[in-house]
């Protein structure tokens, strides 16, 4: 009650009091704004004079001076540091005269004078038009606008002159000169005082490390890619590339081209297509896998084209890689089958091919080196190399340009040549491999390429009988591709004619290249690779393939080379192409090679130059192989479009992957991939066995990779941007795949998985330095771009034996490269090149490392796989390679599928990418899965590829990545079809791990 009462009272009274309070408050508030404070203008003027000295007179006449501090609502004024001013002039207020502050009541103030007040002192709108114009003194007249008279200098083409006038303000030299003249400040450049003090060395090391880190960062790569991406916006995003491809395809399709010619045509095509895409297509086309390949190759080609056209495969260095990747992918896909075939070959030729692979590896190494150089500019050599890379940038650029221009830019030929070669190689891997080997031996890209072509041709010829249609087709395709590459860029439109011309040129080139390149390349490659790779390669792969591969490569190269040279050399086009490629491409390639080598050196060591060269050669070989492989894979399909052979190649590739199962063979094959030549050689060796072809395909893929890498270096960066995600994904997928592939075995080994893959590749590498390099390339390619992807796909295929092998091979290559570069996380310049676009590069590298270690082991697994793979290889995609058979779908899918996957994956990847955009690897992983799922169905994937093709570049890229991942998965799948899920999950994990590795 009480409470209630009180409450009641409280409540009753409260309202009143509160109301009163409110009123008061309200009132007070009003009061607050009363007085002077309510007078806006008075407030404003008084406020604006705050802080100024003033003299204040009070009623009694006294004057106080002080700093106006503030004022009250009643206009009470406050002066700080005020003192009473004495009537007598005095020096000034003495300290004791000054009062801290005085408050004058308004009623006491008579007048206050503020002297020399700046009315605008506190204005905030100092830069408004009103403020500016209001400050003008005296008469201000609006300036009369006068029409601008550009003068004579601008009368003509003033706009152009402006565009061409790149000068942006003062030229640095002018500035120095001016300062020197006006201030006598001499131009000073203080040379860096080098000393051997610990401090200096530490700093140097630190700087190098930082540079490496920076250059290895995906953001850096992406930016570099942007910077290096010469392609125009239109080229990148709006240009429709299909027309060219279609036109080419149509032209080709309309004409029946004998397998042998197909290669040439394919080359020309490649040239026409300019890009790996074409190559890829061609590669896809390669006859081997042909059945699937045909579809595939066309589709692949389409995909590649799309890819190329799409994003900027070519454009960016990465692009080139990407383009290559695509090509590789396609080729890879095709190559995969080839690889499958290769597996068969591997058995027969493992050694010889290995050598080629080594050459291939050299290619990869090149890319890697280039990539490394690009990534790093660390080591002096590296730096130089990087510079070269940058200088090479053009090559990449050219790749890009090729891509964009593909049909247009001939210069790209170099790069394109490289790319084409790659793709071509992939297509006609077998032939390519041989050729490429020979070419690789040649050392120079051009030489390699030409050699590759020749070898291809030879191979095709040689193998043509047996494996040979594929080989031949591949070869043809490769030639065509190479030609295409050379001319490709320039002549998307002119493709046909140019292709022919290119083919002729290529033939010539081939001769040249084939003649001596392969061996030199090998040697170089080996030396270069040896630094890092050698251990692995030699240890793991070299033992198996090393000698054999080299020998084989050399032999094939020489053997093939001659024939090719003899046969095709005759064709002016080929020679011309060769010349063109050699001169432009050759130069570019060489440069790239150096870069690569330099990169390799950097990564590995300065000494790696030779390696770089070797790599270059390998790359060339790879390119050739790729071209061939692509031709082969595509060949079947291509025949109609590119060359049927290319497709065959594709189909073969899948087998190879399976073939890879056989460690030695497979491993070698991967190397072969690297130096596609190897595969080609393999082909010759096991030409009959489809597997061989597939290997060829693989090789081709590798080449693609290499090519992509070589060009990619820069392109890759670009690619990375565009495809970086994809790349990574691929890489991760690959990784995953390996794991998955390893699934059963791998599963346990998961790490090992990748390792196995790597190992496989390592083995390959070991056996064939080139191969290893190739793997690197592939790995890189995979990691890096679509090219990579393709390559990886191809690689994967090889790995099939162990897809892991493939992957690993690629990875191994990476590893090798990385090995060389090893110490450097990025070592894998290759990786970089491949990875370039993405961190994938790093990942690849990492992979490589693992691979390197793993390689040995993987190889063994691979061997087992290889057999199957080889078996499957016989079948195009699924059939040929036991791999495919076993995990035909997967393997073939992976490898062939890889190619296919590439295509398929591309779509899938695209799909995936959306899903798991964040992690490329993740994407890939998913893609792989999905691809696998779809692919598993197998070669169907090949069919899918066409679909992918529509997707175009992105798809391809994606596909590549996916393919890669798929390939990886596939490998795993083969081993453990069930493992797909594992793979997927594993892939993801692997990817993550990879990513971690990369990061």
């Amino acid at each position: 009650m009480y409470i209630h009462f009180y409450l009641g009272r409280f409540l009753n009274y409260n309202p009143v009091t509160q109301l009163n309070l409110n009123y008061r408050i309200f009132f007070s508030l009003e009061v607050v704004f009363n007085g002077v404070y309510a007078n806006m203008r008075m407030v404003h003027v008084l406020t604006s004079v705050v802080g100024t000295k003033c003299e204040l007179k009070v009623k009694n006449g006294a004057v106080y001076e002080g700093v106006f501090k503030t004022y009250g609502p009643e206009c009470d004024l406050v002066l700080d540091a005020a003192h009473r001013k004495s009537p007598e002039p005095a020096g000034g207020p003495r300290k004791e005269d000054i009062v801290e502050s005085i408050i004058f009541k308004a009623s006491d103030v008579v007048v206050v004078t503020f002297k020399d007040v700046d009315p605008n002192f506190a204005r905030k709108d100092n830069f408004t038009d009103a403020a500016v114009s209001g400050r003008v003194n005296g008469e201000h007249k609006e300036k009369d606008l006068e029409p601008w008279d550009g003068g004579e200098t601008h009368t003509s083409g003033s706009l152009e002159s402006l565009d061409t006038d790149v000068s942006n303000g003062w030229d640095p030299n002018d500035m120095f000169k001016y300062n020197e003249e006006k201030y006598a400040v001499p131009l000073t450049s203080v040379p860096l005082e080098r000393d051997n003090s610990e401090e200096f060395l530490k700093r140097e090391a630190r700087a190098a490390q930082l540079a490496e880190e920076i250059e290895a960062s995906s953001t850096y790569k992406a930016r570099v890619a942007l910077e290096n991406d010469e392609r125009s916006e239109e080229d990148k995003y709006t240009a429709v590339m299909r027309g060219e491809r279609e036109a080419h395809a149509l032209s080709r399709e309309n004409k029946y081209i004998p397998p042998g010619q197909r290669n040439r045509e394919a080359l020309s095509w490649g040239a026409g297509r300019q890009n790996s895409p074409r190559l890829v297509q061609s590669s896809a086309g390669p006859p081997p896998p042909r059945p699937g390949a045909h579809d595939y190759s066309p589709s692949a080609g389409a995909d590649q084209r799309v890819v190329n056209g799409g994003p900027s495969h070519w454009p960016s260095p990465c692009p080139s890689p990407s383009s290559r990747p695509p090509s590789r992918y396609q080729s890879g896909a095709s190559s995969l089958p080839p690889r499958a075939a290769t597996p068969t070959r591997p058995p027969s030729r493992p050694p010889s091919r290995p050598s080629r692979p080594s050459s291939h590896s050299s290619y990869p190494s090149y890319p890697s080196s280039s990539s490394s150089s690009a990534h790093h500019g660390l080591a002096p050599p590296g730096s130089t190399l990087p510079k070269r890379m940058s200088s090479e940038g053009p090559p990449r650029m050219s790749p890009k340009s090729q891509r964009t221009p593909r049909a247009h830019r001939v210069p790209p030929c170099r790069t394109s040549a490289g790319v084409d070669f790659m793709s071509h190689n992939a297509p006609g891997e077998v032939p390519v491999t041989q050729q490429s080997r020979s070419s690789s031996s040649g050392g120079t890209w051009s030489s390699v390429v030409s050699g590759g072509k020749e070898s291809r041709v030879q191979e095709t010829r040689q193998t043509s009988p047996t494996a040979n249609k594929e080989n031949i087709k591949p070869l043809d395709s490769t030639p065509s591709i190479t030609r295409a590459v050379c001319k490709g860029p320039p002549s998307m439109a002119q493709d046909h004619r140019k292709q022919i011309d290119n083919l002729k040129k290529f033939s010539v080139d081939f001769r040249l290249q084939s003649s001596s390149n392969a061996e030199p390349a090998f040697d170089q490659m080996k030396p270069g690779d040896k630094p890092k790779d050698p251990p692995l390669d030699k240890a793991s792969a070299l033992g198996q393939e090393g000698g054999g591969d080299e020998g084989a490569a050399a032999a094939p190269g020489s053997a093939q080379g001659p024939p090719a040279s003899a046969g095709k050399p005759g064709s002016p086009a080929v020679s011309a192409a060769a010349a063109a490629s050699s001169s432009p491409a050759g130069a570019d390639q060489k440069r790239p090679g150096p870069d690569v080598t330099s990169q390799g050196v950097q990564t590995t060591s300065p000494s790696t130059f030779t390696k770089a060269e070797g790599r270059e050669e390998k790359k060339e070989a790879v390119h050739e192989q790729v071209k061939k492989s692509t031709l082969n894979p595509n060949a079947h399909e291509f025949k109609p479009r590119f060359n049927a052979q290319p497709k065959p190649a594709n189909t073969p590739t899948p087998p190879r992957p399976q073939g890879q199962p056989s460690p030695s063979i497979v491993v070698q094959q991967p190397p072969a991939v690297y130096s596609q030549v190897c595969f080609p050689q393999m082909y010759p060796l096991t030409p009959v066995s489809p597997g061989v072809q597939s290997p060829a395909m693989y090789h081709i893929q590798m080449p693609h990779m290499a090519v992509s890498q070589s060009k990619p270096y820069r392109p890759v960066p670009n690619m990375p941007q565009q495809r970086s995600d994809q790349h990574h994904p691929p890489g991760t997928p690959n990784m995953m795949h390996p794991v998955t592939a390893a699934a059963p075995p791998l599963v346990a080994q998961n790490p090992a998985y990748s390792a196995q893959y790597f190992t496989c590749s390592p083995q390959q590498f070991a056996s064939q330095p080139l191969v290893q390099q190739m793997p690197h390339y592939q790995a890189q390619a995979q990691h890096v771009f679509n090219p990579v992807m393709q390559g990886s796909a191809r690689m994967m295929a090889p790995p099939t034996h162990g897809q892991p092998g493939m992957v690993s091979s690629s990875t191994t290559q990476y590893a090798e490269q990385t090995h060389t570069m090893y110490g450097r996380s990025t070592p894998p310049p290759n990786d970089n090149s491949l990875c370039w676009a993405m961190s994938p590069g790093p990942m690849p590298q990492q992979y490589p490392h693992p691979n390197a270690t793993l390689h040995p082991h993987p190889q063994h697994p691979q061997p087992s796989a290889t057999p199957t793979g080889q078996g499957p290889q016989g079948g195009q995609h699924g059939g040929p390679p036991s791999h495919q058979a076993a995990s035909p779908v997967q393997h073939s899918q992976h490898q062939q599928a890889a190619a296919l996957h590439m295509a398929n994956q591309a779509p899938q990847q695209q799909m995936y990418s959306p899903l798991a955009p964040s992690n490329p690897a993740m994407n890939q992983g998913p893609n792989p899965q999905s691809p696998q799922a779809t692919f598993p169905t197998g070669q169907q994937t090949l069919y899918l590829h066409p679909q992918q093709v529509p997707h175009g570049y992105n798809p391809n890229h994606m596909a590549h990545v996916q393919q890669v991942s798929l390939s990886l998965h596939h490998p795993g799948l083969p081993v453990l079809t069930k493992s797909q899920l594992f793979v997927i999950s594993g892939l993801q994990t692997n990817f993550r791990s990879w990513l971690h590795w990369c990061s």
Partner: protein
Amino acid sequence: MAAPGPGEYFSVGSHVSCLTCLGQRLQGEVVAFDYQSKMLTLKCASSSGKANLNDVILINLAYVSDVDIINDRTETPPPLASLNVSKLANRARTEKEDKLSQAYAISAGVSVEGQQLFQTIHKTIKDCKWQEKNIIVMDDVVISPPYQVDNCKGKEGSALSHVRKIVEKHFRDVESQKSMQRSQAQQTQKDSTLSS
């Protein structure tokens, strides 16, 4: 409640002249007028003749007579610009510090010339202080009475030469100012009186 608008008695912008109870004639443009406090603010040309500056006069009309509106202005006064209060506060603080610093010097027996010189240097170089009757600039240059150029001592260098330039220019300006003020025959200013 609201006070009459600014323009109720004196429209902003009109020119007004008035005579204070102290016999001082004031004329200027109306800037603000507060009816309640009877405070009128005028803006006049700067007494120092500087074009970009104004003298502001706050007048309590309670002590003023003979208010004439020279010309009225009916136009709407321009909008008021927002003010940077922190800038004003900073100015108030620095002005106060300067004055106190000057007072410190004066109490130390520094001559007017010295004080003026110190102010001049302080405008350019914040790092200056009094040490007894010496002006220490940047802890490097010492200017002792009578604060002439020759009195600048310190380590030979750019700092010393720079300070000398300032001192030299200061006295040159003071001389020119004196002559100008004489010629203009204006109200004696502190400085002029001091200098004279």
